[in-house]
């Protein structure tokens, strides 16, 4: 408040009043005094009083009590005073709606004033007063102002429509203001056009499905003309609006691009970025072999680089956007590495962003320069920046193989500095380098071990423990090192605990004789003394593995790890596409879709890059933005099946960078000696624990149930459980198998999809349950499959006719045909599906039982069968065991028949039934089978012969599934 008083003194009363007079007045007195001044006859005094009121308002003081007195000052020909009163009104009208109505007459009168500046001022202010009664009175003046002869009034009225829409959308529609606003797009004055575009764009955002903007080649042409003439801000509004348009073909796209490119030379960075957005988007539609396409690519680089000489805040916005552009089109800036070199005086936020882009642009061609720079940065003062620089060196090693050696030696140099956080960061990245280049740089382990004591961050400790465990056989005192960590086990973070558990198990498997005590210690720490379910579960799994089948344990724990990918922190492709459509905006700064930070209906609409339509479509274009229809692109992220997760977990990949998924090939090398390795130690330990630990029964939920199961289960059964999880959802022949969740709601913005496949009367059906677990209604469902092994494709559209409300569930059955495009999948029966709704496109993959494809006319003639069986080479025969099946051969035969597996002949030899069967797949492939059933033996043997032996595994799975149900 002091300055508010001071303020007025400075301006007017410096000599007339004293400070003390203000400071001694009580609040009440002050208001009273102001009231008196506001009602003064002297104009000057009135004006000064209003100024004081505004000053008080600014600092957050409540001066609403003066409302009637201030409003009384409104009718004046002094424009300055009028504006001050208006300012007051905008602030307090909402809290005093009844009194605000007093102002209406003056507003209405002002809207008719001869001076256009006053007309505009009135309509501008009225729109800001959110009081219903005032709003009603606004309609007529607004209608006039929208058609005012003066462009200044029209441009103000255009924005006023948006204001009114924000207060009362219905009223705006009822009064037909939207149409008038649309007409203004053809106004002769460029600023009126720009404001109308801005207002329409905003209104359209809250009506995602309306065709409000109605962009067509004619209106686009008008916008492009206005673009050359309006203010810099107007150009931004128009460009942002243009970016929402989807040209009809590549020709139109090119002609718009040609008219937008001059904007790249504008001094205003926002104009440049918005132009870049339009170009990046429309470029998607241009054929790549077009000359213009490469010209355009070349034109984009210089303005982007120029943005880096703007003020630091804008540089930051530009860099966040360049980060996206580099991911989408690396070719644009690939030669511009140097401009991203960090300057000593750059603000920290600019430095960090530049570093990110440097890593992305690093390639074999520039790696030497980049490394020299990174090494320089690693000696700077800002901790975050130094850490990121060290991490970047590691990334370079992983990305550019030729540089790996140099990177490692640089990292070693940095470790020698003994700067605590540098050492820790270096160890974390060296772990990744080991993952990428196994058996190449392990000579540095000794140096790393020297720094063990200085590590105090979980990530670094975990990385170091991983290294010790992974290379336990080369580190003489690995057991001592790990033991030293074990002392404070319960004080460690989960990450470190998990890692320590795994590392010690690895150590045990490598050096069983010396480390039994250690492994027992860690297993009991993890399972008995921990409240962390992850840790406990992992402890139990290892325990069970070690006690039941050490060979399997070795295969699991010491399995070869999947390669780590070269690029890290890449934005997921669909999100990237969406963000490209939001270049220049907050979304592109946050790298998040608008729905993540904007409330309400705005921003829910997802933007997409257009699809390429041009006639000259080139064949090599893997990165073409896949169309709005959402045909699942190969690169589309599929939800990794649960089995992958579990394996990943067992392989302790929990702290690894993004990996290429897929189960690892089991190690074939050394086999372990079997059970004797364990001695009696573990078994006795296990038994003792179960009996002797009261905590088990008392505190643990699922744990006790797990333990007995592991003890009682036959050897291998437990493992089977572990590995068969992927097959749990495998449906069984004529049965309608249970539906499983394919797409969890968490990963699909609230849409949950579960389903199964069935074959009914010769028609393959995909049966889906869609559940809306989000807060908003879902509509416009559509489905599409990626190419797959058997050409499965939807035979019709997805029939979801009614919108799906929150918490509603709908069952849909989708007939499938087998005439779609074919591509071999792995596994063979994998199906990648894209489901679209009004919110987004979601991708998942599921596996269908191959029995679905067994056609009804699959019964082969006996002779043909015999001939075929002989004809197929023996190499193509595969044999499987079906365990624990208690059916006799006839029951089995009839059960299989239900699933179109036909028995052709039966022979009995020495109490063994031999069934000969044939199957025909929808694509004409024949599979021949011989099933041997021995009375009293629950284990069947099956031999499959087929010209395409890769289907055998799937067919076997069907047998198993059908027979066991």
């Amino acid at each position: 408040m002091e300055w508010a008083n001071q303020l007025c003194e400075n301006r007017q009363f410096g000599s007339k009043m004293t400070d003390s007079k203000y400071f001694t007045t009580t609040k009440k007195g002050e208001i009273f005094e102001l009231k008196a001044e506001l009602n003064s006859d002297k104009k000057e005094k009135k004006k000064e009083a209003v100024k004081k009121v505004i000053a008080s308002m600014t600092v957050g003081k409540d001066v609403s009590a003066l409302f009637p007195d201030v409003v009384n000052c409104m009718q004046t020909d002094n424009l300055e005073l009028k504006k001050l009163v208006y300012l007051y009104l905008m602030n307090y009208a909402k809290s005093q709606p009844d009194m605000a109505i007093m102002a209406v007459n003056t507003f209405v009168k002002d809207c008719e004033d001869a001076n256009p500046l006053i007309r505009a001022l009135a309509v501008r202010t009225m729109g800001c007063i959110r009081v219903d009664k005032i709003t009603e009175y606004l309609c007529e003046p607004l209608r006039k102002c929208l058609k005012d002869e003066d462009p200044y009034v029209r441009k103000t009225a255009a924005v006023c429509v948006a204001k009114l829409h924000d207060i009362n959308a219905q009223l705006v529609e009822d009064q037909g203001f939207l149409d008038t606003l649309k007409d203004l797009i053809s106004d002769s004055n460029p600023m009126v056009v720009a404001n109308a575009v801005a207002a329409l764009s905003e209104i359209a955002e809250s009506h995602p499905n309306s065709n409000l903007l109605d962009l067509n080649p004619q209106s686009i042409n008008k916008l492009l003309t206005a673009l050359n003439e309006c203010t810099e801000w107007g150009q931004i509004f128009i460009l942002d609006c243009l970016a929402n348009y989807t040209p009809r073909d590549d020709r139109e796209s090119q002609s718009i691009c040609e008219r937008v490119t001059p904007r790249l030379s504008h001094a205003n960075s926002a104009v440049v970025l918005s132009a870049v957005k339009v170009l990046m988007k429309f470029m998607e539609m241009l054929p790549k072999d077009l000359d213009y396409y490469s010209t355009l690519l070349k034109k984009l680089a210089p303005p982007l680089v120029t943005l880096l000489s703007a003020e630091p805040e804008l540089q930051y916005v530009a860099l966040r956007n360049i980060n996206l552009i580099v991911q989408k089109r690396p070719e644009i800036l690939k030669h511009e590495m140097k401009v991203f070199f960090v300057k000593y005086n750059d603000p920290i936020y600019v430095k960090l962003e530049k570093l990110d882009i440097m890593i992305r642009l690093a390639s074999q061609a520039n790696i030497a320069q980049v490394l020299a720079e990174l090494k320089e940065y690693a000696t700077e003062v800002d901790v975050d920046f130094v850490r990121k620089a060290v991490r970047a060196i590691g990334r370079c090693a992983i990305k550019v193989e030729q540089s790996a050696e140099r990177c490692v030696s640089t990292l070693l140099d940095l470790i020698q500095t003994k700067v605590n956080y540098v050492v820790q960061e270096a160890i974390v990245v060296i772990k990744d380098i080991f993952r990428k280049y196994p058996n190449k740089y392990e000579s540095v382990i000794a140096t790393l071990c020297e720094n063990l004591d200085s590590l105090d961050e979980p990530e670094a400790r975990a990385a170091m423990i991983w290294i010790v465990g992974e290379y336990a056989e080369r580190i003489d005192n690995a057991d001592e090192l790990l033991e030293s960590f074990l002392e404070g086990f319960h004080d460690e973070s989960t990450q470190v605990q998990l890692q320590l558990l795994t590392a010690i198990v690895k150590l045990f498997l490598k050096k069983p004789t010396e480390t039994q005590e250690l492994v027992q210690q860690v297993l009991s720490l993890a399972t008995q003394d921990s409240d962390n379910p992850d840790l406990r579960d992992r402890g139990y799994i290892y325990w069970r593995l070690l006690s039941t089948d050490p060979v399997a344990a070795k295969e699991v724990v010491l399995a070869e790890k999947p390669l780590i990918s070269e690029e890290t922190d890449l934005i997921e492709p669909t999100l990237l596409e969406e963000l490209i459509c939001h270049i220049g905006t907050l979304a592109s700064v946050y790298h998040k879709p608008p729905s993540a930070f904007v409330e309400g209906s705005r921003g829910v609409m997802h933007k997409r890059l257009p699809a390429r339509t041009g006639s000259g479509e080139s064949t090599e274009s893997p990165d073409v933005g896949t169309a709005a229809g959402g045909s699942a692109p190969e690169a589309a992220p599929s939800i990794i099946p649960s089995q992958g997760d579990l394996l990943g977990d067992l392989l302790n990949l929990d702290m690894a960078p993004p990996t290429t998924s897929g189960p690892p090939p089991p190690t074939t090398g050394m086999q372990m000696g079997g059970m004797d390795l364990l001695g009696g130690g573990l078994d006795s330990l296990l038994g003792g624990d179960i009996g002797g630990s009261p905590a088990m029964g008392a505190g643990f939920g699922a744990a006790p149930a797990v333990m007995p199961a592991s003890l009682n289960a036959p050897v291998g059964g437990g493992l089977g459980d572990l590995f068969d999880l992927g097959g749990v959802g495998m449906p069984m022949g004529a049965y309608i198998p249970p539906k499983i969740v394919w797409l969890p709601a968490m990963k699909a913005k609230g849409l949950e999809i579960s389903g199964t496949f069935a074959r009914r009367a010769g028609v393959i059906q995909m049966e889906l349950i869609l559940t809306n677990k989000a807060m908003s209604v879902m509509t416009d469902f559509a489905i599409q499959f990626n190419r797959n092994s058997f050409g499965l494709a939807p035979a019709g559209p997805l029939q979801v006719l009614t919108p799906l409300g929150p918490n509603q569930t709908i069952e849909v059955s989708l007939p499938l045909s087998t005439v779609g495009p074919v591509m071999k999948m792995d596994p063979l029966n994998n199906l990648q599906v894209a489901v679209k709704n009004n919110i987004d496109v979601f991708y998942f993959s599921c596996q269908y039982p191959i029995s679905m494809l067994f056609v009804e006319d699959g019964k082969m003639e006996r002779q043909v069968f015999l001939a075929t069986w002989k004809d197929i080479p023996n190499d193509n025969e595969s044999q499987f065991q079906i365990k624990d099946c208690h059916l006799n051969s006839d029951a089995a035969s009839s059960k299989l028949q239900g699933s179109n597996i036909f028995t052709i002949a039966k022979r009995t030899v020495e109490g063994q039934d031999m069934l000969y069967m044939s199957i025909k797949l929808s694509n004409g492939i024949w599979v021949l089978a011989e099933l041997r059933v021995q009375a009293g033996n629950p284990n069947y043997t099956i031999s499959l012969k087929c010209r395409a032996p890769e289907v055998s595994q799937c067919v076997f799975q069907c047998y198993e599934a059908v027979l066991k149900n």
Partner: protein
Amino acid sequence: MIGGLFIYNHKGEVLISRVYRDDIGRNAVDAFRVNVIHARQQVRSPVTNIARTSFFHVKRSNIWLAAVTKQNVNAAMVFEFLYKMCDVMAAYFGKVSEENIKNNFVLIYELLDEILDFGYPQNSETGALKTFITQQGIKGQTKEEQSQITSQVTGQIGWRREGIKYRRNELFLDVLESVNLLMSPQGQVLSAHVSGRVVMKSYLSGMPECKFGMNDKIVIDKAGKGGVTDEVGKSDLGGGGSTSGKQSIAIDDCTFNQCVRLSKFDSERSISFIPPDGEYELMRYRTTKDIILPFRVIPLVREVGRTKLEVKVVIKSNFKPSLLAQKIEVRIPTPLNTSGVQVICMKGKAKYKASENAIVWKIKRMAGMKESQISAEIELLPTNDKKKWARPPISMNFEVPFAPSGLKVRYLKVFESKLNYSDHDVVKWVRYIGRSGIYETRC
């Protein structure tokens, strides 16, 4: 769009608060103060998201300007607007300081009402604003005057009013370049670029149509091929510089004031415009090729034991001997634990400034093709700090009377068809100044 705009002093007290959107409340004012101005940590980003509200801020001396929004606004536009806002305020009342803001708060509110409507930036050219936001009221304006104002504010040429008259038509062109360098200790150029500006002061009557030409490689090559050389001959404005041999320069990129017709530049690469009255920036450009680096710094740092550093720095000037560089300053960073420094230099004055952790060596003037050196002994206090000294780069400041990029103005033609003065009657002045930007050599 922008939901509100606040101005704070360094203590976090609100000086100006204008809310445009209903979704922004008074609590936003406090949220920014608490989370950004009073934040313990150094500011890590110019954009902050607090409780789903985004804050954009820029700082001018110790004044904070913050724009607030809850929508997915055009972030680049918001920052451009905040800068523009500072320019407008500076044009009205000088430096953006707490004192000036308090003294002009009514004016600022009036400006904010005009240049932001419902959070949408409107015409913010000071030339236009000053015609009707005057703090004098609008009494006495005739109808013609009023419509002239409104058509200028909304019109195609929003930056210039009609009816300007000068007795003497005169224009001044300043080519101001800042040359940036990052050099390795071994003298290898890691990165170098010139960012230049062409600033024009025009005192021209009427609505003159101007055409600006420079030795842009693309234009010269085109002209050379086509055999059109008449314009090159008329380079009456050329001069200065040290690059007599070089005919044309490659411009990486340039941006123009909004008065320049961009589509014409894009198609013909000609720069034509109707200039604003008075001083403004016509264009900015950037070059990276064939830059004349006016100085070369050769550092030699030797650590003698743990408590002593020996530093020797040689600077060499690299331009025509007839030209003089001015205001030369070399800044040699010293470690934090420096206890004493002895300096010997042959030219200029050198001083160790403990508060800045640097030896500052100043030379008033230096001709081209000369060299000078400084040597210093730095005594260090023993420390047990494990962290090594980061060795910040040696930086340099200077001013030279030529354009390091080699840019030359070839012509600036003025046409005013309605008034009777021609291109020849206009008095034109051109000046070239090259200054150091970030001119650093690592040591």
